[in-house]
């Protein structure tokens, strides 16, 4: 089956089995290995990507349903290698240990901040509730998201 969609702003057309998992197409066909496979059950969020503005688990998403959509993977946040403010916040706050959950966490944060630029602590917890981390205990991840929201999209501290 031919399927066409936009990924990180670029249009791609490829041949894939319609039932193929979006995760596998992203990693194997497109070589974008930032998206990780953690559980294959939609329970850990390591495979999270953003499709038409909505955060989804790509391990349970058939590529047939990607037709005509706009997909953002973690690679899409740092075009040309320039880090996104959310990524900078994760580094500055010490929110990365092994890093395996991090792409999914960063995208969950992006999906939140794209909708709510000033999220409460409860909003942040809920937005990250589909992403598991075995290393950090979540505290620094949550403060990284809070910091990123306070610094605004362009990474500058808002004038008070």
């Amino acid at each position, binding site marked *: 089956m031919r399927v066409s969609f936009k990924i990180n702003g670029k249009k791609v057309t490829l041949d894939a*089995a*319609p*039932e193929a*998992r979006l995760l596998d197409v992203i990693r194997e066909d497109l070589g974008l290995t930032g998206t990780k496979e953690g559980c*294959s*059950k*939609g*329970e850990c*969020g390591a495979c*999270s990507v953003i499709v038409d503005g*909505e*955060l*989804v*688990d790509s*391990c*349970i*998403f*058939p590529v*047939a*349903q990607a037709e005509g959509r706009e997909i953002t993977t973690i690679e899409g946040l740092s075009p040309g290698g320039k880090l996104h403010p959310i990524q900078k916040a994760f580094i500055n706050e010490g929110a990365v240990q092994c890093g395996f959950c991090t792409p999914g966490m960063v995208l*969950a944060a992006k*999906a939140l901040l794209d909708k709510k630029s000033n999220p409460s602590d409860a909003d942040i917890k*809920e*937005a990250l*509730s*589909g*992403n598991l981390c075995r290393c950090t205990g979540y505290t620094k991840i949550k403060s990284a998201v809070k910091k990123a929201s306070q610094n605004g999209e362009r990474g500058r501290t808002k004038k008070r």
Partner: protein
Amino acid sequence: MKKFIRIKSLAELGKLREKCVFLAGGTDIYVALNDGALEDEVLCDISSLKGLDKIELKGKNINIGALATFASIAKSPVIKKYAACLAEAAATVGSPQIRNRATIGGNVANGSPSGDAIPALYALGAVIKTNLRSVPADKFFTGPKKTVLKKNELITGISIPGKNNKSFFSKIGPRKALAISKVSTAVSLVISGGLIREAGIAFGAVGPTVIRAAETEKFLKGKKLNKAVISRAAKTAAGEICPIDDFRSTAKYRRETAAVIIERALRKAL
């Protein structure tokens, strides 16, 4: 899976020869596929069916398309107003990633006694609409993951009678997200003139299907809602369920906790 097909209109349903498993958001089916199940099944992708994701107030009814996602149901002003327990249930399903994909039609068709939308549908007196007929929610399920659906019969929507009600949902799981219920409850009350006119109460995960607490509903009808009545109702309800021991919980825990959560839900209506 054996084959993957797509239909673009409901008219194509009649042309299907083989028995199909309908695929919408995939949050149940793809978990099964990834686990190696559904090997001999034909998957029929229905996600392109137009207009089946709407949530609308039509006359006195709230109509929810089968393809409406839990994310859209959780934030719908219409559902929050007339079917609050369903909005609450929808908000607890899985995770943001799951809610953006999982559909109410899929939750109903999967027919798990732990399916979180289902107790709310019982309590609200919802009707399941398929391409062939309409079936009240509390007549739709015949056993764990068993429904009355015939071969290639497709759920197209849910209809909820709009009432001036107060409704609540509660689920108990090992964590706040990504948890299958150990016990859940939904309650809907119509109160006027200080008396309970109608009561809808259902429990999930404590029987082979979601269970309607019919005796408790009968007990509450015509009564004034107060702490004594609530306490009696909770005891009655605990006797109407049939929980078992399984790897998620025990019958004892489920029975005691069911009484607690129905009491808490009823108190919210005070």
